[in-house]
């Protein structure tokens, strides 16, 4: 089967993830949207790996997963810390980094 449907699916998922980041104020949901985007990329990687017959695509996806795991750990820790001090998980509340 041609990789095209997989790529289209990956694109759709990526876009949905991106839109989620833009639309949702809840930090956790935004964060999950980012995970979704990463997964979409992984799908593309794997699809390309099969298209080229090269294992490197899968290896890349594997590394993405590892990095995503690390990212989730730190990101969630940040969210928890912010929640502790501000009692809120809204990304809009963390808007003080401006003049």
């Amino acid at each position, binding site marked *: 089967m041609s990789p095209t449907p997989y790529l289209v699916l990956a694109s759709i998922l990526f876009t949905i993830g991106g839109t989620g*980041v*833009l639309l949702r104020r809840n930090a956790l949901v*935004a964060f999950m949207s980012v995970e979704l985007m990463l997964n979409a990329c992984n799908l593309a990687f794997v699809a390309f790996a099969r298209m080229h017959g090269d294992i490197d695509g899968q290896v890349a996806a594997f590394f993405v997963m590892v990095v995503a795991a690390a990212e989730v750990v730190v990101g969630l820790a940040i969210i928890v810390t912010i929640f502790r001090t501000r009692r809120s998980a809204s*990304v*809009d509340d963390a*808007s003080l980094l401006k003049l």
Partner: protein
Amino acid sequence: MTLGEIGEQTVSTAGGVFSAAWLLIVFPLIGAAALLLGSRRLDRAYGVLGCMAPLASFVVAAALFVAMLGREPEQRAISVPLYDLFAVGDYQVGVGLLVDQLSIAFSLLITGVGSLIHVYSIGYMAHDENRQRFFGYLNLFVAAMLLLVLADDYLVLYVGWEGVGLASYLLIGFWQHKDSAAVAAKKAFVVNRVGDFGMSLAVMSMVVVFGTTAFAGVFPAAADASEGWLIAIGLLLLLGACGKSAQFPLQSWLLDAMEGPTPVSALIHAATMVTAGVYLVVRSAAIYAGAEPAQTAVVVVGTITALMGAIIGCAKDDIKKALAGSTMSQIGYMMLAAGLGPAGYAFAIFHLLTHGFFKAELFLGAGSVMHGMNDEVDMRRYGGLRTVMRTTYVTFAAGYLAIIGIPPFAGFFSKDSIIEAAFANNFVAGLGALVGAGITGFYMTRVMLMTFFGERRWAPDAHPHESPSVMTVPLWILAGLSLVGGAALLYVGGGIVQWLEPVTGEEHVELGIPVWAMTLVILAVVLVGVAVAWQIFGRQPLPVTAPAGSPVTVAARRDLYGDAVNEAVFMRPGQYLTRSLVYVDNRGVDGAVVGTASAVGQFSSRLRRWQTGFVRSYALSMLAGAAVVVIAMLLVRLP
């Protein structure tokens, strides 16, 4: 070995005593350094220390002179190369001395009269707490002046030229706690700088035209240069000379320069430095030979200044300013003579030397009077001093007779020669010189009468007394020189004209009328001047406050509006220009920059509103950016 030609003689390298010519400059330089940098303890021996250097230089100069006498007239120019100053591209300058008839004459004058004035200053400055510094400056001046006249390269000459300007600045402003002295010093320096502007351009033009500034390179090649360039160089040199010699239109500083101590006025602003312009013109004979209009300009400047100085001298009540006017006038004569070309060069130098004697005498005499009168300079406060200050009176009288040109005093010979030469060359210049001689008779008689004759108009606390012998001895010597100097220079040996001939060239012009008739006419004019002065100032008592006077008198008192013109033409517009430029720089140039900066700042603060701080806004723009990148990649189809 010959080193080319200067004037009409060959230049040979130094040997024997001539190779020690550099000592001439080094002695006063060491003196200056010791006095200026040495500890204050040297102050106790200031007199000996101060006078040693010029006397030593005088001995060297005399030795050189004697050695020069022993050589053939055509072999008397000796070059003493010292070291290379620099060499850039094809232009090289070496520091070297040119000892020839002209420079040795100057050296003798500078060191001789200079030594006398140093000795005189021991007495005059005895009570000044900064006398050590004073003698240091004087020595510095002697060194610079000797460098000026001995240099064999225009650039090195320029070093001496500015050196004497510096010494003059320092000495005019010696009593710098007086505002007037400080202002006068600055004025002298700045006006001289205007002259130096011409001088620098002249030297630069020489580099352009001849590729060198050494006398040995410039003079032989001058004949081949285009007349336009020669005229330009000649006029520029004249501008330099005008500044240094206080000639019209740069004369205004000299009268103010009288703020300096009187020995300074005698040495620098009468006998030596101010004559440097004359030296420059005479030395540059080769250039003026090919530039007739420049010569004419020299004559015109000389004539105007001779009359101007004389007129100013008539109206001044300050004895030093009267003498300063006289100095301007006399240097005008010298310039006039120097402008006549080879016919007048020797006379210019001749008058310069005799003037050095009698003007130094007159100034020192005036200093002596001031010394006795509590530094009073107003002649209306003098009167009847001949009985209390006999030595000063007698010696001053010798100077007086010399300057108005009564035979056999020195001025008679030199001034007569100039007036005759002027008449032979140009009737107008001759007439100007003749009238000037008459006015000289008038104002000098006025000075004489107001100071030494008439009733005593002294200030109540004045107790005039004769000066100590350390001051009167130089007066006597200078009086003697004023008496016999002229005749001696003219007739001893071959006389000065023949002595200088190898340097200045020779040209004899025939006067329309016999010489004796001319002499009689001059004498008559002078006597008329004396008589008029006697009529006005000798026969009736003088008011202590100056009368209003005629417009001419008022103008003369104000230096013929020289300062007013300077102020109106240069100073005020200059100040206005400076002030407006400061404004323009702050508001215009800097304003443009600051304006741009604040415009950027305002734009940024508008732009800042885009930075909401919301992560989601930033994410949106990131997404948009990513889209743009994708589109761009699609459009460009990067591999």
